[in-house]
């Protein structure tokens, strides 16, 4: 009988461990089972990414629709090329959509916000978003402000 109780305890232990993993997956990291990894890639060139990193959010009207997967320097254009993975159910982004790098709150993280245009054609896997707006860089803003003050 002693061995029964022991096996029971070990069984509960294993179960608790598995359950903990499940909680971490679903509740803590917000993983959803259905969505999976289906997404398509879209690229955008920015003059300045100003602190954007891979894994940053990609949003539309503030709703998360994907994330940044890679940032490299484009050697031809000498601009930052950002690769984004957009959830495949968001397939209604027009070809003339614009992407801008935004900041959540004063000290918050950088993310990409996408606004759609009026084009009939939609963005496909591997397309580039032409209309981009770089991150606001504080030094440049201050520089502009001072320049304006001086010329007045």
């Amino acid at each position, binding site marked *: 009988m002693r*061995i029964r109780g*022991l*096996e029971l*305890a*070990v069984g*509960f*232990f*294993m179960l*608790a*461990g*598995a359950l*903990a*993993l499940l*909680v*971490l*997956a679903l*509740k*803590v*990291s*917000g*993983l959803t089972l259905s969505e999976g990894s289906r997404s398509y890639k879209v690229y955008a060139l920015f003059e300045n990414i100003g602190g954007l990193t891979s*894994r940053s*959010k990609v949003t539309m009207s503030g709703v*998360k629709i994907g994330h940044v997967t890679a940032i490299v320097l484009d050697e031809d254009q000498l601009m930052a090329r950002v690769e984004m993975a957009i959830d495949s159910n968001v397939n209604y982004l027009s070809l003339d959509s614009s992407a801008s790098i935004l900041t959540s*709150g004063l*000290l*918050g993280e950088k993310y990409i916000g996408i606004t759609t245009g009026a084009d009939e054609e939609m963005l496909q896997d591997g397309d580039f978003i032409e209309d981009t707006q770089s991150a606001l860089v504080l030094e440049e803003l201050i520089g502009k402000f001072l320049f304006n003050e001086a010329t007045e």
Partner: protein
Amino acid sequence: MFTKIQALGAAGLDKLEAFGRSGIILSQAVFAIPGRQAWPLFIQQLYSVGVLSLIIIIVSGLFIGMVLSLQGYTILVDYGSEQAVGQMVALSLVRELSPVVTALLFAGRAGSALTAEIGLMKATEQLSSLEMIGVDPLRRIIAPRFWAGMLSLPLLSMIFSVVGIWGGMLVGVDWLGIYEGSFWSNMQNSVDFSEDVVNGLIKALVFGVAVTWIAVYQGYDSVPTSEGISQATTRTVVYASLAVLGLDFILTALMFGDL
């Protein structure tokens, strides 16, 4: 002068030899084919190594989560971003504190017990006795303990994380009054399953191998006297803790360091 250098060399060779011996024991324990009786032995060890460590893991996890939440709140509230407490608690627990603290507690709670048990078996000639009966003690004694330790630590670490996050929520949401929705959504936005949770799991697994390996080796290699066993037990806790901290740095650099 030369004698000192010679002594240094001898000490180095000694350490190297011990490392080699422990490697042999590890490989034999890992590849020992489980016999008919291996399953109950393994369950038994899972009980004494894993289940009996649950209490200390749960209590420590709860308190560490609560303290993290409290400390994080007092700092973040100055910047008006106290809803980031959930994110901070979850990230620091899942990535770092759970595997490391669990491994350190595990070394003290289960590792030292493993060393003392195996050392005592050696001192009372039980290991020799097994050998004379024709049973390989590496298979019967070392292998089930090694596997149980290796499996237990990741499980304990997961439990530690969950309990810690729950403790953080208790303090943050119920006590300090952070809005529950933003507490969780901030956490879910920042914690990534494959990057954070899985990496934490890998860390725990590596620590499990290291701590259990050190513990069973120190027991198996101990001098079979009461003094020798007490020294071996101390060595287990010291070496295992150092190994965990050192490995943690290396793993963190590999996983999150963008090398």
